[in-house]
């Protein structure tokens, strides 16, 4: 097994190669505005470091969000195109699940929250029973509106750091790691569990308003 994992759903541009047991190589950068520029060179670097070509891959893993759309699409367009050219499967995973898996590796066991920055003073978030078990679907909300649901629980992800009044026990990891995402995918593949399609979790409709009518130019 050799998986290439990418995730651009958060400010992190993160890429990892995983052989099913261990991370072979990884690249992690945090730059919310340059996903498009940074991703392909990161893939190139990771492969070079491992001394491998894309043709060695058995699958692509991609974080499908939720996340700010423009960056999110960079990873998905890249992953789906790779998979199409190489003729290998692309496995979608919820980005928050990757962070939860990393939280487990960092020693968090019991119930906790994962929250990432959704901008516009909101977070993408989900609650976890344990690092492998999400409670319900990921959502996008104002932190104050979910304060009761997350009270007293540890929380990981940058969204937790941004709103300390709500997430009072913010912990590492702060940023998404493709290595964790790949490890989670390897675990799921081994256990015969399924994946999400490589389609974005937007959670919001596009901002677009149907115009009421054209503006009359003649002074009334």
């Amino acid at each position: 097994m050799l998986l290439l994992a990418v995730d651009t759903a958060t400010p992190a541009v993160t890429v990892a190669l995983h052989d099913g047991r261990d991370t072979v190589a990884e690249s992690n950068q945090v730059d919310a505005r340059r996903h498009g520029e940074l991703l392909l060179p990161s893939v190139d670097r990771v492969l070079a470091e491992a001394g491998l070509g894309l043709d060695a891959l058995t699958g692509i893993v991609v974080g499908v969000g939720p996340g700010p759309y423009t960056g999110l699409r960079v990873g998905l367009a890249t992953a789906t195109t790779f998979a199409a050219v190489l003729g290998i499967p692309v496995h979608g995973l919820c980005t928050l699940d990757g962070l939860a898996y990393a939280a487990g590796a960092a020693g968090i066991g019991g119930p906790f929250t994962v929250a990432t920055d959704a901008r516009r003073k909101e977070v993408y978030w989900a609650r976890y029973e344990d690092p492998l078990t999400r409670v319900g679907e990921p959502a996008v909300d104002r932190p104050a509106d979910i304060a009761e649901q997350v009270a007293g629980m540890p929380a990981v992800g940058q969204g937790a750091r941004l709103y300390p009044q709500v997430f009072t026990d913010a912990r590492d990891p702060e940023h998404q790691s493709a290595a964790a995402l790949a490890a989670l995918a390897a675990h799921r593949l081994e256990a015969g569990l399924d994946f999400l399609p490589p389609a974005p979790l937007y959670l919001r409709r596009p901002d677009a308003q149907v115009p009421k009518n054209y503006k009359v130019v003649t002074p009334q």
Partner: protein
Amino acid sequence: MADEPLVLGIETSCDETGVGIVRGTTLLADAVASSVDEHARFGGVVPEVASRAHLEAMVPTIERALKEAGVSARDLDGIAVTAGPGLAGALLVGVSAAKAYAYALGKPLYGVNHLASHICVDQLEHGPLPEPTMALLVSGGHSSLLLAPDITSDVRPLGATIDDAAGEAFDKIARVLQLGFPGGPVIDRLAKEGDPKAINFPRGLTGSRDPAYDFSFSGLKTAVARWIEAKRNAGEEVPVRDVAASFQEAVVDVLTRKAIRACKDEGVDHLMIGGGVAANSRLRALAQERCDDAGIVLRVPRPKLCTDNGAMVAALGAEMVRRNRPASDWDLSADSSLPVTDPHVPGTAGEEHSHGHVHDHDHVHELSKDNLYQ
């Protein structure tokens, strides 16, 4: 491969997901997935709606184009993609896919300019572009007069709209007349049954002291809206066909007049018209008439190649390969305001992707204006 490179082009600068494949100046495939219907109820292109549609359509459209062309991706000599100008989020989907595609195939990547592509597409219809080429580009997003001594390296803006693009004016007038979106085709159709001389709408920026090659359609748009409102306020019926014809006449009169003048001033004996508005039947007819009178050869591609498509990107990409222009780097960015003077975005280490070819640049042009047009 040097003379007839096989290139796949990806275009996602607005609401069409286009993938085209060309061999040299021969069109092999032109696959387009449009999200125009999703935008219609908003009365204009909604960037986020367009970006979402691009992502969904990207891989299937590439595969459709390859099938249509009957070629194997492994045989491609390069991948071209619109790097700008256009909607930032929309461009980024195409650029990301193109990079992944080129990288996975081990092919050079060419980030190219959308406007230069609109010009270069005519090579697929009428053969190699004359040098220099005079081009009038008119669409919902742009209205420019461009002089291109070398479409791969030297494109000079002579003039552009100072407010609305020509296609935008069509959309806005269609909205005032409650004809839906997009406005171009429906106004063209209604205008055929109307009198273009019925109402004398203003011709923007055509005074003797106005800039010779710039355009302005905002004043025209307001004048048409006022005229319609006056009719409505007086309780009279609006003669939709005559309004459409007279408005359209005002637009195409200015466009063709200025384009012909630019050809004459610069001593260029042919004119290329591209962009979505080049599909307008009256623009094509009037341009033909005026070019004939002026002894200028008119080149307008078929309507499907005038609107945004992948074939135009592939056409320019093929020219980049043929002229041995340096490929783009893997950190190529989508640049929503890529200047028209940059026909492509060469990498900083061009040799890295050029696969060892070392050719002399066979098209070196003097930068002196006087040497160019002899």
